């Protein structure tokens, strides 16, 4: 692939910085160490590329991830060899599970020492094989230009994902005249399966025949930015749109045809709709087990159409009637054009009935509950902020109650379910979107996993606001112990420091709220403050997330919120 042409010799470290510039990278998140010293030295000559010094490499990966999820662009993180590289692993695994474009650069011990158990040597290429789309150990500086350009190409095309480039110390200092390739032609690499017009036509025919159709739109719509086409499709064929967790934002939640999220803690209407549907159109989703429940009971009456660019997702989890391969930016507009206008009035009457009968419950209690906080977050920010979360109850309540409008507004670790993700991901988003309001919604458990980044936020006067929902428990685990382990609470009580003092120690603006009366005012004060803000909400300790499909059960076993009238809670859906 190397061209005959040469350029003036430059070091491997310079090649890395040139590659970043070539790909429009304006910010990287990293942490220095022994073997990356030549790169950090070179960096001083590149003021246009900002380097954010994190306090733990895991957060460098999460920040790069948050940058990517909030912009649609490739996020870049950087770590030294050995422990620096292994600390990236959770962040890389988080990214692969949600198909996030990321390039991770790691330093490696000198090429001649690789394999000798040298100081801070680890086989990061071997370690990250199962959690990267592809990875490289570049032993010859002449291979570096191609490896870096290919890494960006692979990360950001087709089904996106993290790519790791491991570079030995002496490769950073070695000189090469090999230019960057102007295009990447990698034999056998198919960014997307070829579009199939016949399948699109067949899909349109199934829509015409269906009486109870539903769409489940996933992250594929977000990343292909086909949300407009999706909205047009829904309007033209009068289709209800349900979202997977990571599909939130692919349709404006306030669009009349949006039914919100479905899944283990999805809104009841979505779960009931899929149970009764005669046609299910999955668009850019991978039928995750948290969405399908027990597969044998999933969409029992429906023909299933699956749109995806990755054909390995077809029939991986559920049997499908029709697969429509191809990039959604091609297939979705074609599908929209092919469907005939129709109205599904009877079906909608039923859906509206379920919405009224089984709404999300936000109790009108006097004490402050997490749901009050998250509903107020939605209202006070006009549903317009970039929101990241950790994993657990607060994540599900945010997904239920925040009315996302657009792609790249919702940052959450869906596949891996990474606690500690929320705050650093929000920071990555805040660096990328300095003019937008960015909130990290975290629990007291997850926040204590990565809160050392408060210092990083302070140093950069970063406009990131933390909505800390403190219930003194690992809430979701506690909920499972309550419901499925007869209230035997085992290691779920979560002690915390005095977050006010912690914030003061870091120099972070702090508010605390423990009553509903103070809620709106607290949010307004927090929103008005500049720089990083930590807001602690002391909420009811034993609040549960409903609806809930117990793990391993079919979706017809959905448990409705106990606050709803008991006689109306369906156990088993009428056929």
């Amino acid at each position, binding site marked *: 692939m190397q061209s005959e042409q040469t350029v003036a010799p430059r070091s491997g470290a310079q090649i890395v910085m040139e590659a970043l510039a070539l790909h429009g990278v304006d910010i990287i998140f990293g942490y220095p160490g022994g073997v990356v010293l030549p790169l950090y030295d070179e960096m001083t000559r590149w003021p246009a590329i900002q380097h954010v010094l994190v306090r733990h490499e895991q957060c460098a990966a999460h920040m790069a991830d948050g940058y990517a999820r909030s912009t649609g662009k490739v996020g870049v993180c950087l770590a030294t060899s050995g422990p620096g590289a292994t600390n990236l692993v959770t962040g890389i695994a988080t990214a692969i599970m949600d198909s996030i474009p990321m390039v991770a650069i790691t330093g490696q011990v000198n090429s001649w020492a690789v394999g000798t158990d040298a100081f801070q040597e680890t086989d990061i*290429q071997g370690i990250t*094989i199962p959690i990267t789309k592809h990875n490289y150990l570049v032993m010859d500086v002449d291979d570096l230009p191609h490896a870096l350009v290919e890494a960006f190409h692979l990360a950001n095309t087709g089904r996106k994902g993290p790519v790791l480039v491991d570079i030995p110390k002496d490769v950073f200092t070695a000189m090469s005249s090999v230019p960057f390739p102007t295009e990447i032609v990698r034999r056998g690499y198919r960014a997307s399966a070829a579009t199939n017009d016949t399948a699109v036509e067949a899909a349109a025919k199934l829509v015409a025949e269906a009486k109870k159709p539903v769409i489940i739109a996933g992250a594929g719509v977000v990343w292909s930015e086909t949300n407009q086409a999706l909205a047009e499709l829904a309007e033209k064929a009068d289709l209800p749109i349900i979202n997977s967790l990571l599909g939130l934002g692919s349709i404006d939640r306030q669009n009349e045809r949006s039914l919100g999220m479905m899944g283990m803690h999805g809104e009841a209407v979505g779960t009931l709709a899929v149970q009764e549907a005669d046609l299910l159109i999955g668009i850019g989703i991978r039928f995750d087990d948290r969405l399908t429940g027990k597969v044998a009971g999933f969409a029992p009456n429906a023909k299933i159409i699956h749109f995806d660019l990755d054909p390995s997702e077809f029939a991986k989890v559920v049997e499908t009637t029709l697969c429509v391969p191809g990039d959604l930016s091609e297939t979705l507009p074609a599908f929209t054009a092919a469907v005939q206008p129709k109205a599904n009035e009877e079906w909608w009457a039923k859906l509206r009935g379920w919405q009224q009968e089984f709404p999300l419950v936000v109790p009108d209690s006097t004490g402050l509950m997490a749901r009050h906080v998250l509903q107020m977050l939605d209202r006070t920010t006009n549903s317009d902020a970039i929101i990241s979360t950790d994993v657990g109850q607060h994540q599900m309540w945010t997904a239920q109650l925040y009315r996302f409008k657009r792609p790249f507004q919702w940052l959450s670790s869906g596949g891996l379910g990474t606690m500690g993700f929320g705050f650093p991901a929000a920071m990555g988003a805040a660096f990328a979107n300095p003019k937008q309001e960015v909130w990290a919604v975290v629990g007291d458990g997850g926040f204590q996993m990565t809160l050392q980044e408060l210092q990083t936020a302070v140093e950069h006067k970063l406009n990131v606001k933390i909505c800390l929902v403190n219930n003194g428990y690992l809430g979701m685990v506690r909920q499972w112990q309550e419901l499925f382990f007869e209230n035997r609470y085992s290691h779920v009580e979560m002690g915390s420091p005095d977050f006010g003092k912690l914030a003061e120690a870091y120099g972070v603006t702090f508010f605390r709220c423990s009553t509903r009366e103070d809620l709106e005012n607290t949010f307004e004060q927090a929103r008005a403050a500049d720089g990083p803000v930590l807001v602690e909400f002391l909420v009811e300790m034993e609040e549960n997330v409903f609806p809930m499909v117990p793990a391993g059960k079919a979706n017809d076993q959905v448990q409705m919120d106990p606050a709803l009238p008991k006689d109306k809670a369906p156990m088993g859906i009428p056929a």
Partner: protein
Amino acid sequence: MRHTQEHTVTALVHNEHGTLNRMISLFRRRGFSLSSLAVGDCEEPGLSRMSIVVNADDNMLRQCVMQLEKAVDVVSVESLDGKEYVHRELAFIQVDAPPEKRSEIIDISRVLNCEIVHLGLKTMTVQVVANARKIQGLIRLLEPYGIKKIVRSGTVAMSAEE
């Protein structure tokens, strides 16, 4: 229980740092059961061809082919099920062979088109090039003499026509 059986698949792959590791990792991670794997150079420099025998039901086989095709290392995948293809495996079987038993073992080898590639004071080594089932048959025939060691190359396979 789902019905599984052996399927032969070949994959043309980039011969790069980590390729074999990535392929093996894919099989392990996705739970594909490998019966045989053979890798070697092919007609094009820089590429290798892998012959893979996987024990799978139809759905797993389909997933296996899809996941291979998706791998960045892989240029192309060919499932040989239902196609005309040639396949062979090579094995060495070292067997106890005191002088009085030698001629029996030589007879068996001759009947099955095998070659004696080494004759020692106490053992003989038989080379067999055949399909896996025939190799299994030879092993059964030689077992009564006392098998010391077996080494097998894994199946190599190629579709018969383009």
